[in-house]
C-alpha cells in the first residue's frame, strides 16, 4: 500500500510540480512540432510513456552499476541511449512481425518518439538523483502525462493567439516562446524556490 502511495505521489509531483515542459524545459521543440498537429498528441504521449517505463526498468540496475564510476556524467547518458536503442529495435521488430499493416513509415515515426530529449531527460533525472525503482517508474509516467498536458495547453493557447493583434515582429516563434515562458512562471510560483536539482 505504501508503495502505491509513493508511486502516486511521485507521479503527481512529476505531473504538476516538476512539469516536463514548464519547469524542466525538456523536449520543447518536439512539443512545438506536435502543437501543429493536435490530433497526434495523445498517441505520442502514450508512446513516450511506454518508452520511459520500459527503458527505466531496463536501465535501473545498469545505473546502479555505473553510478559509482568517475565517468558517470557521460557513461549514464550513453548507457540510457543504448537502452533506448535496444527498446527501439525490439519495438520495431515486434511491430514489423505482428502488425505489418501499420509498418509503413514506422522507422521515422517511432524514431522521433523514442529518441528525443523528453524521453532521455525523464530517464536521466531520476537516475542522477538515485530514486528507487517505484519512484523512477512513477516519475517517468508522471513526466510523460505532463508532456501531453503541457502540449494540449500550449496548443490551445497558440490557437487563441490567432485572435490577438500580435505585432508583426512577434508573430510565430517569439510569441510562442513568451507564452510558454509566462506559463512556466506561473508553475514556478507553485514550486517556490525549492526546485529539486
Amino acid at each position, binding site marked *: 500500500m505504501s508503495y502505491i502511495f509513493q508511486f502516486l505521489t511521485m507521479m503527481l509531483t512529476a505531473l504538476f510540480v516538476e512539469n516536463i*515542459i514548464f*519547469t*524542466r*524545459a*525538456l*523536449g*520543447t*521543440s*518536439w512539443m*512545438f512540432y506536435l502543437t501543429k498537429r493536435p490530433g497526434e498528441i495523445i498517441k505520442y504521449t502514450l508512446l513516450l510513456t511506454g518508452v520511459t517505463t520500459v527503458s527505466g526498468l531496463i536501465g535501473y540496475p545498469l545505473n546502479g552499476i555505473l553510478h559509482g564510476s568517475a*565517468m558517470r*556524467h*557521460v557513461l549514464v*547518458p*550513453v548507457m540510457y*541511449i*543504448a537502452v*533506448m*536503442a535496444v527498446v*527501439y*529495435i525490439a519495438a*520495431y521488430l515486434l511491430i514489423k512481425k505482428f502488425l505489418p499493416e501499420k509498418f509503413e513509415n*514506422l*522507422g*521515422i515515426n517511432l*524514431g*522521433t518518439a523514442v*529518441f*528525443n*530529449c523528453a*524521453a*532521455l*531527460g525523464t530517464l*536521466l*533525472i531520476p537516475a*542522477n538523483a538515485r530514486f528507487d525503482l517505484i519512484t523512477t517508474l512513477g516519475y517517468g509516467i508522471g513526466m510523460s502525462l505532463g508532456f501531453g498536458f503541457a502540449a494540449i495547453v500550449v496548443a490551445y493557447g497558440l490557437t487563441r493567439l490567432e485572435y490577438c493583434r500580435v505585432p*508583426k*515582429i*512577434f*508573430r*510565430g*516563434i*517569439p*510569441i*510562442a*516562446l*513568451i507564452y*510558454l*515562458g*509566462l506559463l*512556466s*512562471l506561473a508553475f*514556478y510560483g507553485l514550486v517556490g524556490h525549492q526546485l529539486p*536539482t
Partner: protein
Amino acid sequence: MKSELKESLGYIFFKNPVLVLGLIIGHLAAGDTNLQNAAALSITFFFVTVPVMLFASTIGKKIPAGFNLVCYALFSAAMLVPAYSLSGSISATIFDSSGIYPALLAVSTVPIIYSSKIAEKQTPIKAIFSGLCITAGFIITAVILGAAREFLGSGSLWGFKLADAIYPAAKLPFWGFILLGFMAAIVNWIKEIFKKSEKGEEEGA
C-alpha cells in the same frame, strides 16, 4: 551550388536553428544560465552535429531503412565522450552546474532529424559545411543568452565578479524562454529591415 552555400550560411542568422526554426529551445532556456554552461553546450553541440552529419552523408544511405535513426543516436552518444572530456577542462564543477542538458543534445532534433533529412542527401563536404553553420548559429545564440543571464543573474561574466546581481530571477527557466522570445523578435525585426531595404533597392533599380 551558390544557392546551397547561401542556404547553409543562412543557418548562422536568418535561419538560426534556435531563434527562427525553434529547435533547441529547452536546453538553452533551462541549461544556459552562464557563460561556462554556454561553452559546455556549444562544445557538445559541435561534437554531436558535425561528425554525425558527416557520418550520415557518407554511411547513412547504406543503412537499411528504419535503422538509420538508431545509428545516428548511438553515434552521437559515442561523440559525447570526447565532448565531455573537452568540456571538463572548463571548470571543475561544470557537470554539476550544467546538469543533464549537454547530454540531452545527443538526442535533440539536430543530430537525429537533420542528419536523416538533410545530411543524407548532401555530399560529405556540404554536410560538414552546413553542420558548421548550424553550430555557429547555435553558439552565437548560446553565448549571447548565457552572457546576458549570467550578468543579470549574478553580476559576473565567466565567473569573474563585475557588479552586484541586478535581477536574480534571470537564471530561472522561464526567463530563458522569455529572453529567447525577445531575441527571436529582434531577429525578425532585422529580417524585416533587410527585406525592406532589398525591396527598396529593387524599386530604385
